[in-house]
Structure formats: C-alpha cells, structure tokens
C-alpha cells in the first residue's frame, strides 16, 4: 500500500513536533525515519498509525483519506518501542488478540485462530514460547512477539517505533538482519523509526532524515551518506570534520589562504566545509588544509596520525590513515587534500 503525507503539522503546546512534512511511501518499501530525539519521527509514525492526530495536513492510504478512520480501522500493525505486550496474557493470547477482537462476522473460529497464531509464531521462530508470559521472555523475544502480534491482523502497513532501541548490541545486529529478510518474505510496506544511523543505513531501502519537525533529506542509504543535502544531514550521518571557511570570488578561503578546491556552486559568504575523515589525504604543499602532526602510531601498512587543523578561531583535531611510504614527523606541518567534500553556507 502507498502512503502519502501532505504538509503535516503537529504541535504539543508550544513545541512544534511536525512542521510541514510531505512524504510519499511506495508500496512494499522498507523506509527508515532517522533523526535525533525530538525531531518528530515518532510523532509522524503515530499519526500514520492513528494514535495521534495532526493539527493540519493530510494522510492518504492508497489515495484514500485515512484521517477519517480511527487507529483500529486502518489495519496498521504497530510495534511499540517497549513492545507494550499484554502482561496478563500468554504469548499465544497476545498474538491471538487482534484476531479475537474482530467483529463476529469476519472473526475466525477457535481452530482458525490457533492455526494462524501457530503460523505467526513459526514465522518469528518462537512457537516454543506460546505458553509463557511476557515477563518470562528476553528483550529480543519480546520484540519478535510484538511483531507477530502486529502481523496477526494482516496489516496493510507495518510501523515500528525504535524496534531495536531497547536491545543489547549483539541481539540488535541479529534482529536487524532478521527484520530485513522478514520484510523480503512478507513484503508489506514498512516504516521504522530510529535514531541510530547505522541501523537506518543498513536495514532500509530508503532513509528519511528528520530534524526539528522537518524532513532534511530523503534518499537511498548511499545517497544520504555520500551526498548529504544539508549541513545537518552531513554532521548527523557519518563522522564529519567541520571547518569554518569563506566563499568569495569563486574560491574557498580558510583565513587568508585560498584552497585548491572549487566552491561547487556554494553561495558567497561565510560557510562551513564538511569533509569525512576518510575523504582526506596528505598531499604535497599547494592549497590543501594545513595542520601540524601531533601524534603518530604505525601498524601494518598504515600509519595513523592525529593532525591539528588550524581554521577559524580554534584547532580541529582529526585522525587520518596514510600510507607508510610517506613518513610523517611529529610537529611537521602537512597539507591535507579533501577528495570529496560539501560546502554549506553558515
């Protein structure tokens, strides 16, 4: 199913959670909403689910207005951050809940419900836990039961709020891989919220980066990483070195030194130069970023250097790997050539 969000606005008192969000989600997509806490991503998810209502804007499912329907009528599977399993019910009854509360006309009989629950528990590979209570499960198991419960009603969309947030690192990695293969298997349009960029880039087909209630960039994981659209995306995704520069006369200046890089269409005026650590190389003098070597370590084929770049008022310490055939000395002033960079006006 496709989801279309038009100009969504949501305020909580004086706080603006969503400030005009437009988004189209294609059928069968696995989309990540990525952003820091308070960026509005969970609010967006809850509005899609019908658990919150926007102050303005539209939500359309397959072109149809979804705002006239309550959460229960939208056929949305929602997996809560802390799972929200029904603590007084067994795993089996948790998964069966959505089937048992259906209107009598379409409700399955007991045998049908049992068969469906069994099928779902097999899908999440936890059929042996059917008679346990949620308090007897590990975090990863609870997560998968919450997913099975959401899938029981054959949702048209699956929404997951920080699906791996409360799990430890190892379980998290396993579940990520598992979620992706599950998505390939059942192929239902899915949206998940995360503040973990690695999670978003690894699991999703498409990533929506949000900040302060607005969408900063929409793109494939490679696009948002390699071609960040805004300064925020660049600094939020991946490690970035940020240097104050000045663009004027078609050249980029650090202090009074002109760099040998092109402004790439950046507007004249005070700007910020964003470079990733691995996109810089030690180069012969002539228009690179100047810095002095502070500390050196060598192992194997690389030497790792801490280089203090002087730009603007202060120093920026960066760590760089260089080949050993260009030996460095502590205290030596070297030039670093950015091979890939972005300039945004400050």
């Amino acid at each position, binding site marked *: 199913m496709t989801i279309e969000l038009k100009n969504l606005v949501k305020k909580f008192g004086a706080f603006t959670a969503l400030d005009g969000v437009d988004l189209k989600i294609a059928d069968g997509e696995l989309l990540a909403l990525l952003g820091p806490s308070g960026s509005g991503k969970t609010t967006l998810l809850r509005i899609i*689910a*019908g*658990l919150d209502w926007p102050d303005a804007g539209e939500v359309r499912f397959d072109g149809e207005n979804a705002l006239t329907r*309550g*959460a*229960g*009528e*939208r*056929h*949305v*599977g*929602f997996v*809560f951050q*802390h*799972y*929200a*399993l*029904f*603590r*007084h019910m067994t795993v089996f009854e948790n998964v069966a*809940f*959505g089937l048992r*509360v*259906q209107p009598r006309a379409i409700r399955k009989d007991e045998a049908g419900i049992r068969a469906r629950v069994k099928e779902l528990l097999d899908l999440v590979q936890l059929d042996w836990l059917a008679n346990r209570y*949620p*308090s007897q499960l*590990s*975090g990863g198991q*609870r997560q998968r039961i919450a997913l099975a*419960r*959401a899938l*029981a*009603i054959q949702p048209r969309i699956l929404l997951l709020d920080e699906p791996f947030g*409360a*799990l*430890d690192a190892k379980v998290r990695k396993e579940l990520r891989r598992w979620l992706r293969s599950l998505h390939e298997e059942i192929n239902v349009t899915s949206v998940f919220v995360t503040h973990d960029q690695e999670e978003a880039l690894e699991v999703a087909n498409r990533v929506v980066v949000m900040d302060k209630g607005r969408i900063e960039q929409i793109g494939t994981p490679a696009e948002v990483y390699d071609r960040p659209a805004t300064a925020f995306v660049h600094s939020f995704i991946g490690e970035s070195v940020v240097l104050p520069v000045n663009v004027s006369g078609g050249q980029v200046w650090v202090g009074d030194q002109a760099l040998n890089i092109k402004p790439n269409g950046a507007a004249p005026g005070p700007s910020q130069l964003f470079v990733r650590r691995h996109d810089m190389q030690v180069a012969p003098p002539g228009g690179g970023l100047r810095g002095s070597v502070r500390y050196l370590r060598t192992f194997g084929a690389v030497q790792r250097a801490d280089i203090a770049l002087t730009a603007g008022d202060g120093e920026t310490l960066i760590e760089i790997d260089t080949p050993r055939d260009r030996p460095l000395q502590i205290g030596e002033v070297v030039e670093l050539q950015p091979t890939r960079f972005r300039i945004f006006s400050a």
Partner: protein
Amino acid sequence: MTDGQISLRAAATDARTEPGLVRWIITGLAVLFLTVFVVLPLVLVFAEAFSRGVGAYFSALIEPEGLAAIRLTLLVAAISVALNLVFGLVAAWAITKFDFPGKSFLITLIDLPFSVSPVISGLLFVLLFGMQGFFGPWLQNHGIQILFAVPGIVLATVFVTFPFVARALIPLMQEQGTLEEEAAISLGASGLQTFFRITLPNIKWGVLYGVLLCNARAMGEFGAVSVVSGHIRGETNTMPLLVEILYNEYQFVAAFAIASLLAMLALVTLVVKTILERHLDEGQPVSDD
C-alpha cells in the same frame, strides 16, 4: 562444621546486629505496645460478647434491632461500594489517561473526605438537606425524606468512602501508562473491548484492594452517619450506631456481640488486604532488559 563456624562469625561481626539485650528490649516494647492497644481490646470484645455464654451471644444478634442494624449496614455498604467503584474507576481513568486543565485540583478534591472530620461531612448533608437547609423546603414539599432516613445514610457513607477506589487505582494506572491500550486499539479492539480485556485485568487487584478498604470503612463509619441518621431504632441505626446505643443502655452483651461482628470484619479485611498486596506487587509492569 566449617560452614557453621563461618556463619557464626559472620553473625557476630555483622555491623547491623545489635547486642542481644537491646534486641530483646526493642522487640519486647513493640510486642507490649501491640498487646495493650490491639490484642487486648480485641480479646476483650469477644470475652464480653460471650460473657453470658454462646446462647446469649446469638440471641443478642437475632434481636429485631440487631438484625435491622446488620441489614441496614449491609445495604448501605453495598450501595456505597457499588457507587464508589464506578466513580473511582471513572475518576482514575480520567486522571491517568487524559490531560485536561484542573487535573491536580480534581485529585485534591478526591482526597477531601480524608482530610475532613466525618462529623463535618455529616453536618454538610444536614446543611444541604435539613429543614433549614438548602434543598430542605423543596424536598419537604415533594415528600422526599433524605435526612434521618436511608438515603441520607447512604449519601454520608458515599462521601466519606469515595477516595478509596480512586486512590488505589490512580498510582497503579499512572505507572502502567496507556501503551497497552494503544496496542489493543491499533489491533482493532473497540473501547469496551480494550477496557474489559486489557485495562481491567491489569488493575483488577487494585480494584479489589480499593473495594475492600471502601467496604471496611463503609460498614464501620460512625461520625458522619451518626449526624444524619436520627437514631431511629430498627430503622436508621447501622451497626456502629447500635453498639453505642446498646452500650449506653448497659446492654453489654448485646453491644459487644454487635461489636464482635465489626471486629471480625476488620480481621477478615486485614487478611484479604495482605493477600491483595502480594498480588499487587506481582502485577508490576514488565521491565525492559
């Protein structure tokens, strides 16, 4: 045995352990206090009640006045508990599941009966429904009797006991939050299905706890009921009121027989309360790993 030696030494050097004498004195004081103020009176109630034998005890209970008082007390308790159960659930639901202006004021209002002397609570209804009261003349013109009749006793009891259920539920429901309800609704459950299948099972021990305390207070209430009852024999005397009347008339066996019923109610309440508290502790929310 080495095990025994180690534990002996551990006991002797445990910083929390006081010298034997101190332990005996402290424990002794606590036991003495409880004996004088709780156990002794309780034993005396039963001793007095049975002082002329079992026959006299039961014949005191089946006196028409005694039976009427028991019947009235049960009726009043049943009505007030039922009303306060509904009120408590609604109030706790509103306070914990919604945000609205004046919420903390409402919580304060719910506590009001706890901070007002029961006699004042009773007087309040006299001021409202008495002959010189606010609604008095109107009620009299329409031939409705509230004061010095069962409705007045029920009203006073409801007022005095209304915090119990709400107070038992508010912290419990606040702690549980609304996530499970949201999950149920997104799975297609209706409001009623969500309440009966999710909310109620999660708070059932809290509800029972509140009902138990509400009931104990409703049956035992003296002050407020005394003001509004009018003490009409066989009609508006509840058990606590009858105990006082019988005692003042030197009918000690009868007074203590009725009192012994109230004492038993207290004992049963205590036992059930302990059991419920254990269940409440078990029903804590599932923690995250």
